[in-house]
């Protein structure tokens, strides 16, 4: 769950999506990967947690299970973010690798939801890139849209960077990342460059990049036009960069969500019939459908 900009509801959507998926019978593990500003536990109404991610990272706890806390929702557990250590936000490379490896190999949950922080630091991007569904929360506002595009671009180039050695395109990626008006802007440019060197590599690269799927969630839609922003972004993004995004749907702006946060409860539990809760359930259902699970039958 990424988004680039702060305060757009990533944690709220993460928490409630976790609840929705858990209610649909899935075993869900929420991980607060917002290293410097963790508050997923607050969204879920869990008090200051006894164990956090930093315990896992620094104190030699080998198992994720040891730092998991229960949330009171059946099937939904949480790994809370680091609380007070000064450099919690500055994850070391080795720590990150350990966490990534552990998360990728965990077997306790059906769904792992990583709530990312704002910005486009490599820590954030790397967590985003291990996801099967890279959910991107945007508000129908220029600031948020701008950051969302920047986030996707950054994630896209980060992904390239991870695979670049194989294609001999390091220089190009670095050029694209360092200069705003770099000659390389789009997938087409890069694939084209690689093709000039090795056509077969280009084919593979194209396939790999096509698998790079971002799914949009438009949050706080106040008007019907706002709800269409997601589809418009998908269309525009595809036109410009040739990469598919997916519009998962919009969540209506709803004071119930705000009230629920004030109560430190997921809105889905507080007001299951509110518009925002309906929207969250729809999105959860879409994700289940994408994974080949029938949302109806899964609900007990």
């Amino acid at each position: 769950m990424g988004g680039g900009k702060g305060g757009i509801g990533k944690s709220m959507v993460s928490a409630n999506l976790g609840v929705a998926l858990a209610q649909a019978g899935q075993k869900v593990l929420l991980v607060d990967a917002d290293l410097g500003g963790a508050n997923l536990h607050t969204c879920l109404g869990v008090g200051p947690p006894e164990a956090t991610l930093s315990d896992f990272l620094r104190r030699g706890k080998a198992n994720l299970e040891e730092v998991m806390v229960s949330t009171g929702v059946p099937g939904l557990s949480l790994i809370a973010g680091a609380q007070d250590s000064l450099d919690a936000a500055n994850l070391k490379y080795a720590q990150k690798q350990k966490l990534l490896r552990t998360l990728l190999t965990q077997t306790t949950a059906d769904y792992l939801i990583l709530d990312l922080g704002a910005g486009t630091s490599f820590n954030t991007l790397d967590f985003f890139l291990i996801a099967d569904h890279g959910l991107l929360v945007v508000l129908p506002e220029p600031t948020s849209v701008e950051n969302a595009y920047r986030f996707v671009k950054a994630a896209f180039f980060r992904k390239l960077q991870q695979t670049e050695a194989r294609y001999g395109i390091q220089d190009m990626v670095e050029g694209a990342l360092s200069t705003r008006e770099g000659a390389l802007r789009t997938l087409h440019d890069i694939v084209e460059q690689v093709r000039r060197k090795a056509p077969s590599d280009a084919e593979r690269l194209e396939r790999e990049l096509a698998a790079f799927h971002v799914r949009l969630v438009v949050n706080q839609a106040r008007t019907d036009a706002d709800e269409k922003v997601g589809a418009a972004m998908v269309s525009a993004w595809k036109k410009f960069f040739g990469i598919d995004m997916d519009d998962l749907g919009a969540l209506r702006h709803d004071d119930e969500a705000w009230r629920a946060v004030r109560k430190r409860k997921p809105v889905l539990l507080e007001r299951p019939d509110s518009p925002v809760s309906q929207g969250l359930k729809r999105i959860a259902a879409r994700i289940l459908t994408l994974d080949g699970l029938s949302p109806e039958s899964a609900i007990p």
Partner: protein
Amino acid sequence: MKPFAQQTYYELLEVPPTASDAEIRAAHERLMELYSPDSIAVYALGDPDQVAALRERMNEAMEMLTDADLRVEYDRSIGLSTERLSKAAATAEAADKVDSAARVAEALATAAAALAKAAGAVDAERLEAESRLKAAATVNDNEGEAPRTSGTPGKSEERMRAEESKRQEASGMDAPVVPSEPVTVGGVAVVDAFRASFTRSLSFVYVPATPLRGQGRGAEAPAVEAESSAPAEPPAVAAPPVDAPQEAAPASGSAPVETPVAAEVAVAAEATEVPEPQPAPEASASPAAEPQAPETVAASPAPEPDAPAVTTTQGESEPNPAPATPALDASTSALARIPATGATRAAVRPLTSRPIDSRPAQNGPTGPGSVKSPTVRKLGDAQVLAQDSAIATAESALAQVAAKVRDARPRGVDIPSDAEFNGELLRRVREARGLSIHQLADRTRISVRHLENVEADRYSALPTTVYLRGILMNLARELGLDPLRVSKSYLALFSEKPAKSGR
């Protein structure tokens, strides 16, 4: 997925190649909104220049794909078959029917050329028959006008009709062939529209014919006078000078041979308010009023630019009783601009003799019966002559059709290449074509109100760009202007100027 610079127009507008005009316009409108500079989804997506370039290309795509000719050409260039066209015609909504059918018809014109070529003599004959009909129709018009002075228009109308049908019979079976067009491609609507366009393409035969007929008529006049001392004659002949100078500079420029031209205009100008006797004497001055006269007279080149004159006159004439008129002058205006080829002229010559011959019969109010027999005889002559040249006629007709499709709507009015098409210029072009706002509205199916607002540059009263573009393109097409150029030019003015408030 290609970068948008490499996408086809269809990919660009995200429509299938079978999309109808309406679908294309809708898609364009949607995308224009999506990629509008203040659209949130585009914010920070790419350079503003890129977005502008994309919009530009989408506009281009829409304009190309909603223009029948250009779309056909474009489809061909990207390797799409013309199948789409018939499909499009089949799925066209009832409202669009005329429009799309006309488009199909236009597209089919080339096919028609091939067909016609194959059909050879048959078609030639049909052409001939058709042009004969037309000639008769004009004669009819003239007649309808002339009697007005004598106060028995209705009757003479009737008589004319009778005569016309008689003539049709006399001219053999070619006439009945006309309705059964060989087009089967796009369904009924296509046949209709095709016929219309076919007629239109034919009418150029009529255009050059007019001067010739005029010449013949000039020659004829004395004969008529001698024969029946028709008093109705002079007024009819008189009119031309009035209209001729006022309408169409080309017409006046083309008047080196006074007698024929004057007489010709007389024929064409049914709406003659100011009788002027001069031309008549002049006309009669050229003697040699033999049935063969046309041929000799025809040697004096019938200047092509006369055609607009004909149009104008007809356009401005009082409500004309002849039903054929609208079709006629519409087609004339469309084709008058096409320079008559030598072949055409040659082909026309014999044809003209017929109308000429028939004239005395109609115009001689005193002795219609007696004049009739010569008419028939001469008609026969004419037919022989016509058949000789019918093939040439057909070929040149086809050439014209092909040229029309392939190229360019030629321009009748001299417009500098850098001209801005504002309302004023459009009005001038319309007036040069001799069209009233109402006539234009009838033909384009654009409301009078819109047309007036367009001509007055009342931007605030005009519909949104998408609709306005359609209006402008239709309008330009009707005026024989380049639709793309006109719409682009006008829309540029439309978008940059603050709305004029005057209403």
